[in-house]
């Protein structure tokens, strides 16, 4: 399978990327690792006329502590996040979940900014980020702006990002040793989740239960008013709209959401050490 023809522009800085996006408009797509974009281009589901390659902007690759938050550059590749010592100490759910993305070859190429921008409801890292909360920092012709993570994903392949903006950083609160868990149900080792659940400090996010990754609001409210894990997890599929495909119908996905939420909350309440084992 071969993508349809396009013009290729390589940029060396964020400013150059914004200028190229402004020049080429909605027909342009950003290319970082390419592991979300190239497969859909090969299937001709996406037919951009210009690809702007930001994969060479290496100063977008970092993980650092800034006050109460951890700032992660959008160009950080999954394998870099997976092995990052700062992330492991400050926000350990992220390196763990980065290691659940695809397989080693995919993790060598895929970037945090790419998976956030792609807005696939079955994506691993966005699910963890949604449970963490925080901010997506984007840059456009008028400079930088910050978008709360809870407002970033609008639907299937749809985000709050404008056509002339790119993601430069994701900021999440430092969680340290607080309990967390990520429960992922797949058919095969390196597949997308049929359903996945991320839990951090009473916040719960679901993968593949709606058009985008979503918070399990009813579960979170139940936990906040002191309900048991079992009671709270039984509400995990409330207000969701899971799809049906050859792997799972809607009712099975709802069952998985409730089951995996219970497991995630149990593991998270057992502390990070138990979860990471």
């Amino acid at each position, binding site marked *: *399978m*071969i*993508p*349809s*023809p*396009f*013009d*290729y522009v*390589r940029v060396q800085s964020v400013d150059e990327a914004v200028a190229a996006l402004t020049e080429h408009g909605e027909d342009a797509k950003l*290319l970082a690792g*390419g*592991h979300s974009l*190239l*497969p859909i281009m*090969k299937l001709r589901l996406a037919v951009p006329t210009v*690809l702007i*390659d930001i*994969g060479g902007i290496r100063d977008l690759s970092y993980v650092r502590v800034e006050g109460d938050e951890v700032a992660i550059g959008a160009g950080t590749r999954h*394998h870099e996040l997976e092995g990052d010592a700062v992330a492991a100490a400050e926000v350990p759910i992220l390196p763990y979940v980065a290691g659940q993305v*695809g*397989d*080693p*070859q*995919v993790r*060598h*190429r895929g970037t945090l900014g790419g998976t956030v921008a792609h807005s696939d409801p079955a994506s691993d890292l966005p699910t963890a980020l949604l449970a963490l909360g925080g901010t997506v920092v984007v840059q456009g012709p008028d400079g930088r702006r910050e978008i709360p993570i809870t407002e970033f994903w609008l639907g299937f392949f749809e985000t709050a990002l404008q056509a002339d903006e790119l993601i430069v950083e994701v900021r999440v609160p430092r969680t340290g040793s607080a309990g967390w868990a990520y429960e992922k149900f797949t058919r095969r*080792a*390196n597949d997308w989740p049929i359903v996945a659940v991320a839990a951090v400090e009473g916040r719960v996010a679901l993968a593949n239960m709606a058009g985008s990754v979503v918070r399990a609001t009813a579960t979170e409210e139940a936990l906040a008013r002191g309900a048991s894990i079992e009671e709270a997890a039984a509400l995990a599929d409330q207000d969701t709209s899971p799809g049906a495909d050859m792997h799972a119908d809607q009712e099975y996905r709802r069952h998985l959401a409730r089951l995996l939420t219970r497991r995630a909350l149990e593991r998270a309440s057992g502390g990070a050490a138990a979860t990471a084992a």
Partner: protein
Amino acid sequence: MQVSITVNGQPRTDEVEPRLLLAHYLREVRGLTATNIGCDTTSCGACTVVVDGLTVKSCTVLAVQTDGGQVTTLEGLAGPDGELHPVQRAFREEHGLQCGFCTPGMVMAAIGVLADNPDPSDREVREGLEGNLCRCTGYHNIVRAVQAAAKAGPAAGQVPQAQEVQA
């Protein structure tokens, strides 16, 4: 557009279409056909090569993305005198293959596994090779081969330096 890519130590500049995938560049432009194209969907790993020190699936990388980079394929592993790379030798000795179609990608992926972890357990080998499918399901001997290669030491996780494989 023009790309300059060093493949197995041999630098070359070629005129390519931006949409040319690295797998096709290696096979059709450079004539290196050990890199197999299996599924073409980033699933099977048969097209695995090493780009700038990391394993990738060359069916999901554009040739233009590796402009200025170093690519190692299966053809670049053996020494100039034909001496096999430790992973190649282990795959032969442990019979880590059946039909052989997945073997070039498996060998490259195995080098990546050993680069990250010079002494992997059975489970760590299986997790490290999760991106590579053997349609004969000959995994048992493949895992044994990777563990046998680990006994060769750090060389098993390295691809030859460019100058060493110059013809």
